[in-house]
């Protein structure tokens, strides 16, 4: 008789936000083998970028790769194309881009935290975080004009300027948010029933993280100090004194904590950027066409987002290659699921914050 049980989860499942399918081989409650299938929402964005849209329009197309980190994709693409065209971006525009990126990180991390809380069975906390997330959504709407799909970054600069009234709104709302996040952090830290679901569950060791080239908050929770904000100079992070956050535990709890501390860091970054906001133009003149190859990375809320662009002086690009963070962390996710209890699966998956629309694009 067969000793193991085969349990599939997905592609549609109550604990999954997006379509992904895992199939588990379980021995009693313990998972011994995992297979993942991620390609349910493939839309052919890479092909469309090289055949249907001109290079000036592609920035708006790639923003549709993902709803949660839309601005990351358009920023990364725009930085790449600017490098190919040799455009000098005004300082003020760089700062505004950074602020928009950090706001995006805040709302994405809050969503992830609420989702992990929900999947651990704590729905009241889910409601509460979602309510507080509304603060940052309002800031985003005031700053960029849209709540989710910002379309804020354009080649050469940004689309909308900032004024002192808006600055006041941002400072005010972020101050409020800072308090609320502190309260939420206390809950995540001290709540006994949450700790049962989180502590020492889904552990990824440092060696494992290095071996499967993990990225983003997941790697940092395992003690790997890898953050593209440290490793790239295209947005002025080093000017603002950015410090990356690492934890040693490698379990769900540490991942949540990394995200919570990053929220504080993001809020601080935005406030410092507002303090030192340079005056001047918000967009540079765009002339000519791109030529050459560019490798560009930006730190998305979930990790590193990579764009490879190749162009040869035409209106259409030759190749657009997108690497999204979740795609790179699927092997790590499989490692974390192996050996854990089947009942912990939803919480582990949620703690990886998977974004499948990104992954399959």
């Amino acid at each position, binding site marked *: 008789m067969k000793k193991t049980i085969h349990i599939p989860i997905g592609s549609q499942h109550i604990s999954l936000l997006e379509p992904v399918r895992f199939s588990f081989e379980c021995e009693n409650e313990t998972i011994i083998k995992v297979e993942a299938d991620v390609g349910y929402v493939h839309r052919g964005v890479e092909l469309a970028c090289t055949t249907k*849209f001109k290079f*000036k*329009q592609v920035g*708006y*197309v790639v923003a549709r790769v993902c709803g949660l980190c839309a601005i990351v994709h358009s920023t990364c693409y725009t930085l790449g194309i600017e490098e190919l065209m040799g455009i000098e971006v005004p300082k003020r525009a760089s700062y505004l881009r950074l602020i928009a990126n950090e706001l995006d990180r805040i709302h994405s991390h809050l969503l992830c935290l609420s989702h992990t809380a929900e999947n651990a069975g704590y729905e*009241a906390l889910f409601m*509460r975080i979602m*309510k507080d997330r*509304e603060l940052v959504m*309002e800031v985003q*709407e*005031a*700053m960029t*004009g*849209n709540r989710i*799909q910002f*379309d804020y970054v*354009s080649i050469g600069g940004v*689309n*909308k300027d900032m004024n002192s009234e*808006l600055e006041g709104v941002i400072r005010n709302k972020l101050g409020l948010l800072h308090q609320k996040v502190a*309260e939420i952090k*206390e*809950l995540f830290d*001290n*709540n*006994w029933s949450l700790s049962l679901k989180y502590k020492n569950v889904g552990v990824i060791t440092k060696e494992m993280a290095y071996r499967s080239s993990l990225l983003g908050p997941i790697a940092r929770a395992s003690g790997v100090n890898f953050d593209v904000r440290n490793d790239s100079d295209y947005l002025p992070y080093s000017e603002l004194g950015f410090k990356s956050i690492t934890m040693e535990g490698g379990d769900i709890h540490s991942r949540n904590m990394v995200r919570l501390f990053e929220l504080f860091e993001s809020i601080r970054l935005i406030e410092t950027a507002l303090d030192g906001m340079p005056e001047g133009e918000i967009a540079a003149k765009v002339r000519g066409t791109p030529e050459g190859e560019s490798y560009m990375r930006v730190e998305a809320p979930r990790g590193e987002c990579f764009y490879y662009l190749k162009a040869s002086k035409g209106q259409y690009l030759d190749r657009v290659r997108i690497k999204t963070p979740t795609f790179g962390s699927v092997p790590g996710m499989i490692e974390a699921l192996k050996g854990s209890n089947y009942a912990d699966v939803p919480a582990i998956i949620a703690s990886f914050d998977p974004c499948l629309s990104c992954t399959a694009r």
Partner: protein
Amino acid sequence: MLKAAFNALKNLFSTPATIDYPFEKSPKNKEARGLILFEEPKCIWCLKCEDVCPPGAIRFTQDRESFDYTYHYNPYLCIYCSECVRACPDSAVALSQCNELSPPTDDKNMNDNWFKIEKEAEESKIAVKELKKIKKEESS
């Protein structure tokens, strides 16, 4: 833990954070982006906006006899990026953005008929080019 219990109790008696949506309008920032407005008298028909629009929500068709352009705008394709507003030359400024979103409509030019407009926009321009060429040859 105690704090959380206290909070939960407090939430029992406070007003809901959500709004009664269909009966109440959802709050909108005055800076929010919305539909594109077009003022025909100002337009100099440079077709720059048609060229930059990422989803092709602005289309111009050309009349085959008078060579006049007609402006077509599909509010359901528009992504409110305002790229067209920035592309419109300073000498014209025929486009502007308001913060209203697209309402439900029974405009017959939407849905399947929009494909016809797209096709006509391409074809009419080519046809007019040819017509002009013929005219030039005739006059010379």
